């Protein structure tokens, strides 16, 4: 008997929760705000679903109800991806060590 591919995805999912658990506990508390903004950015990888639906229409009907929702989702996710990574970058650039020459 074959194993349903769903079980494989479920395994990946469960193991990733554990990875997330251990990785996030090791994040230093002073970087918790950048952690939130970067998790925002990466969860917007949901854009891959939006791109699939945006490209699903054929040349006669690029815009149908389904693809319009896809296009909108692309923009929403893109705001998050660019906004999330850039604002994280901006924050992380501010974290500096004490200068030695004091």
């Amino acid at each position: 008997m074959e194993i349903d591919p769903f079980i494989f995805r479920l395994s990946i999912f469960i193991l990733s929760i554990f990875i997330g658990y251990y990785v996030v506990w090791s994040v230093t508390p002073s970087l918790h705000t950048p952690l939130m903004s970067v998790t925002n950015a990466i969860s917007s990888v949901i854009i891959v679903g939006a791109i699939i639906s945006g490209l699903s229409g054929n040349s006669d009907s690029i815009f149908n109800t389904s693809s319009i929702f896809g296009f909108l989702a692309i923009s929403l996710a893109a705001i998050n991806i660019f906004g999330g990574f850039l604002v994280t970058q901006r924050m992380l650039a501010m974290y500096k060590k004490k200068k030695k020459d004091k």
Partner: protein
Amino acid sequence: MISANLSAIFYLISGVLFILALRGLSSPETSRQGNFFGIFGMIIAITVTFLSIGNFSSGLVFVLIFLLIGGLIGAFVAYRIPMTAMPELVAGFHSLVGLAAVFVAISAFLNPEAFNLGSPGNIRLGSLIEMSIGAVVGAITFSGSIIAFLKLQGIISGSPITFKGQHPINALILASIIILIYFLCSTQYSNLFWILLAVSFLIGFLLIIPIGGADMPVVISMLNSYSGWAAAGIGFTLENIALIITGALVGSSGAILSYIMCKGMNRSFFNVILGGFGATEQSINSQNKEQRPVKSGNADDAAFLMKNASSVIIVPGYGMAVAQAQHALREMVDTLKKNDIKVSYAIHPVAGRMPGHMNVLLAEANVPYDEVFELEEINNDFANSDVAFVIGANDVTNPVAKTDPQSPIYGMPVLDVEKCKSVLFVKRSLSPGYAGIDNDLFYRENTLMLFADAKKMTEDITKNL
């Protein structure tokens, strides 16, 4: 066009890069590199998606246009946003992830062929369940984050909004969501999908509305977690490994942050979610308000005390963010350091409106991160320090949490500021903090109240040093 197996491997790679992005945040030195891993992972995921479809003819131009529009808005916001508005920004971002998840689910529901999920009215059962869950969680994330955003912006009151029968109504709505999913899956009747979405938007709204302003760190972390689970739900629908991995990472990340925030307040997660904290205590408190003697001083007195100190600990809180006093504070500290006074910062886990809020503000004001300490690291040092400078914090310094079992904040970990030789407390009035209780610290022998705006007072002290 590349094969499904090859694209799955690339999605796996981008999932791994996302793990490394979070891993980088374990220290500020590695964090910037971590962020690049994240960006790189995102580029791979998007590129592979285009390649795996291979249909470059029709919709591509529009996909790129919408990508560009979103990207420009995002970049613009990221550059322009002031650091004090970070909690609002993050809440706003959460709502967008939620809405994007809803839109992708709608799109997949209307045109399942595009995703290989069956045909309209005959969507595979497993996929339909997965997309319903993704859509429900996404909708809750969206409307909940909108409420959190409005509360943080001050557009709606930050105080808890409660009404009678709130909890039974919420329980009823949650039960109806499960029933709706069941009937949607058994009948495939599309109107049920729209009702399901409407009900989910409603419950997200109702869940967050009773939660007050100072509980926002928990709410934001919780919505962060939800946005992850929504992404994972959609990931299962689309059978996309990158999305499943990321959803799980973000989901557990938000859950851990919620846990840390709850622990910082010594409250159970359910206690926060059920809401209404601070609404009841306030009335009891106003009845037995007795006049107790308070010592107050001016910037001159404060400067004198600090000039004669050898070590000072700064305790910032949300009030510092409101008054935008972080730069003025840093200038004051610079002056102190020139006089060979040792200065460190003590951050309570729930100071501010989101996890790590104070750290970002101090970093913005060029405070080196190795002068900033967490509660456990610094709490023993108060006894050996001369001056504690409390600026915009309140409940997190209240000694009542250690002494009075009747107090609503009893058991909450607090900073032991009262152990310092003297305490300078910058505050606009004697009004109680968020928890609605009087701060015992105001009336201590060694406390000097500085009644003023945090920024103005800090600047005045600097002038007098």
